[in-house]
């Protein structure tokens, strides 16, 4: 148990890790250990494989400056590698956005009847933004034209994409001055690949600024499109109660885990599991019903909108199967470990891939098409039900942990909440900050990484921040971590929050940590910050706000893109492990110092979550001072 306790703070996960050990099933933690020591060149970012004159590496301990065979300095090599990470992350988010747009477009034409326009108001707001006529038109007509206009954002060749224009004026002006207003969602990614090709960009600052532009085309582009159009298609979330952790798996119902990212899949499954035919079939097979749970971001999507339980975050995906109670796990894209197929093979669990972008050798692939969404989903769920009798009854180990949570906060409804019952406005939030009842805001987001004790980074940081009267918003795996630790409940305010934050939470009835969605929903935070600025009294730009961001357990390239679009939007962002850039002093100095003078935001690296929280608090205090806000009420 000691080993398990060292690997995770979550008791359910510890219990499953013990089981993995007993059954000799390897997990990501074990594989990390065998991978040690990991390559120093890779960790420092000073290895380049972009062309066949290489592979090249820079000796970080040599007396003389080394370059790659082409002459690229370590600054160039590190910078190129870095923006390719940004591009990969942006590509994942933006492709997700593209898929949602595609679903909307099909739905609008009546070609995909599993989908409909659930939030007409939001549709109209978007339509106005995109100059789509709304008078005397059906919502389907509006939606179709909107979808076409949004598709065009992906392939735009001239001008600017639209969503960044939502940012505060000052911020837009700054992006234009610096030449980093995104021009087209796909274009920036293509240009990243072009610039980092052998013999193109050789100036690390130039390279990195394009990296920021690429990230902006994600945060204020692809991701934001995904969020907004998902709200249109599936409804805009409202605060909702739900449960989290592996204890949400059921001993006597068919357990279906939907894992991955895109709600075009998971949202349909929500309906399918309620289908009478399915329920009947389940009973026939001896189950009390069908229990749908999610993992990772797709879980967050259906959690936010439908209160579907979330069984776990990134590092718990293998552990879910280890319960022996998962009858079927269906996956689409992103953060799905290839290891799942070998873990599943030790149990009765069926693993099904659904996206043409994600196949695995020996794994059943049932390709999901929006046009036949419901039918295909039903087919898959039937497989799950058929698999229920194959459970090895004696070998089911479902941990007890099954924690309550409140999720479903968005940029729009936070306002409703904090505005009191009859006026939707950010005023009370801003006032709370100005008066010193709240110190400021923080966004704690991102993945899990076995290099950091599972959930420890997220939970300890959140606790330290709320203790210091910082209101915390969370997304992705970070949100799930906090859910599992009980922080997403109003009661948590009394247990862990400082007095000021407690008062706010009590008055409004919210938890001290607000779950605002999946990773693409980090775009909600951008809008919320903009609204805070527009409400007034806290400066004129996002970089003036007493706010900070963090990704204490980041792992994926998506996190790199997210970090970059937050910094590019003026937010001080702290990461747990450093980026692979330390091999270049110049790049490190630029991203951790100089860039603040240009963009108003910068990066810092601190693996200890409490220390990192204090870096954020120091930053927030600094901003409070500049704004000449009242001293804090309770500190």
């Amino acid at each position, binding site marked *: 148990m000691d080993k398990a306790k060292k690997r995770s703070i979550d008791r359910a996960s510890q219990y499953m890790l013990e089981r993995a050990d007993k059954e000799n099933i390897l997990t990501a933690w074990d594989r990390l250990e065998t991978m040690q*020591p990991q*390559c120093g*060149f890779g960790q420092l970012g000073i290895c380049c494989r972009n062309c066949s004159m290489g592979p090249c590496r820079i*000796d*970080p*301990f*040599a*007396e003389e400056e080394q370059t790659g065979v082409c002459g690229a300095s370590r600054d160039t090599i590190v910078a190129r590698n870095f923006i390719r990470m940004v591009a990969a992350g942006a590509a994942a988010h933006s492709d997700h956005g593209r898929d949602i747009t595609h679903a909307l477009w099909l739905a609008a034409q009546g070609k995909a009847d599993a989908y409909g326009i659930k939030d007409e108001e939001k549709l109209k707001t978007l339509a106005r933004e995109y100059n789509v006529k709304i008078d005397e038109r059906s919502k389907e007509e509006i939606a179709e034209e909107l979808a076409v206009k949004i598709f065009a954002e992906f392939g735009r060749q001239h001008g600017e994409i639209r969503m960044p224009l939502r940012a505060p004026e000052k911020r837009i002006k700054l992006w234009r001055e610096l030449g980093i207003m995104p021009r087209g969602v796909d274009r920036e990614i293509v240009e990243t690949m072009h610039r980092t090709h052998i013999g193109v960009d050789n100036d690390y600052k130039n390279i990195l600024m394009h990296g920021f532009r690429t990230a902006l085309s994600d945060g204020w582009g692809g991701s934001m499109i995904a969020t907004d159009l998902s709200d249109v298609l599936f409804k805009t979330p409202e605060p909702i109660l739900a449960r989290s952790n592996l204890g949400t798996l059921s001993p006597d119902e068919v357990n279906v885990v939907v894992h991955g990212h895109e709600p075009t899949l998971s949202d349909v499954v929500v309906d399918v599991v309620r289908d009478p035919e399915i329920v009947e079939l389940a009973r026939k097979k001896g189950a009390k019903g069908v229990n749908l749970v999610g993992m990772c971001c797709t879980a967050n999507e259906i959690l936010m909108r439908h209160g579907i339980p979330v069984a776990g975050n990134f590092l718990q995906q293998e552990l879910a199967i280890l319960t022996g109670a998962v009858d079927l796990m269906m996956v689409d894209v992103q953060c799905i470990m290839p290891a799942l197929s070998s873990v599943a093979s030790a149990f009765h669990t069926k693993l099904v891939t659904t996206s043409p972008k994600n196949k695995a050798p020996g794994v059943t692939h049932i390709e999901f098409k929006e046009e036949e969404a419901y039918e295909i989903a039903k087919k898959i769920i039937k497989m799950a039900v058929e698999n229920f009798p194959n459970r090895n009854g004696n070998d089911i180990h479902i941990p007890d942990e099954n924690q309550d949570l409140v999720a479903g906060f968005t940029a729009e409804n936070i306002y409703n909440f904090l505005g009191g019952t009859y006026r939707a406005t950010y005023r009370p939030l801003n006032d709370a900050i100005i008066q010193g009842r709240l110190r400021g805001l923080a966004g704690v987001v991102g993945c899990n990484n076995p290099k950091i004790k599972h959930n420890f980074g997220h939970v300890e940081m959140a606790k330290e921040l709320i203790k210091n009267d910082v209101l915390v918003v969370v997304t992705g795996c970070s949100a799930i971590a906090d859910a599992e630790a009980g922080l997403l409940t109003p009661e948590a305010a009394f247990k862990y929050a400082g007095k000021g934050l407690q008062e706010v939470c009590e008055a409004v009835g919210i938890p001290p940590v607000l779950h605002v969605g999946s990773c693409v929903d980090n775009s909600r935070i951008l809008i919320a910050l903009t609204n805070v600025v527009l409400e007034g009294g806290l400066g004129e730009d996002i970089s003036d706000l007493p706010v900070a961001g963090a990704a204490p357990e980041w792992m994926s390239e998506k996190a790199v893109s997210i970090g970059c679009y937050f910094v590019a939007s003026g937010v001080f962002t702290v990461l747990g492990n450093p980026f692979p850039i330390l091999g270049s002093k110049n790049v490190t100095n630029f991203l951790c110092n100089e860039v603040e003078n240009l963009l108003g935001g910068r990066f810092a690296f601190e693996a200890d979550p409490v220390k990192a929280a204090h870096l954020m608090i120091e930053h927030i205090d600094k901003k409070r001072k500049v704004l000449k806000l009242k001293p804090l009420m309770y500190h």
Partner: protein
Amino acid sequence: MKRVFVDLDRCLGCHSCMIACAVEHSLTKELFKAVQETPLPKTRIEVKTTEGGGSFPLQCRHCEEPYCIDACIAGAIRKDPETGLVLSDEKKCVGCWMCVMVCPFGVIRPSLIPDRREKVAIRCDLCQDRETPACVEACPTDALFFGEAEEFKKAVMSRARRRENALLNSG
């Protein structure tokens, strides 16, 4: 006497041993901090290339009859009677380079080290503070081996036998 041996067939020339050695001989002993130290820590093992283009990690051989001990004008090098290791006292070294001049393997190098304003001669010390030398632990292909000569020979022979069997079995 335990030494570091190299199974040359397995060496891919990745230089991970060099990074691990430098980090082990740094002040902070952590990669991310070591790259920021002044002076930068120096590796005692170097991956050289053979005529045929293969990789050849090379460090002090801790010779039976070391040339360097006779050459040292400061008496800073001695052979430990128990372990057989040839150890340089970097504090005594005056940087005269006589040892560099006589070492037939070229494994002693003038380098800057912390607390010394001028360069001194450094060499592999088989990581006295560790159970297994840093380079051996860092090698991703197990090309580096730490143990007695007989153990090494056995290990290489059995690897070769396994390779042969695998070839035979795969038909």
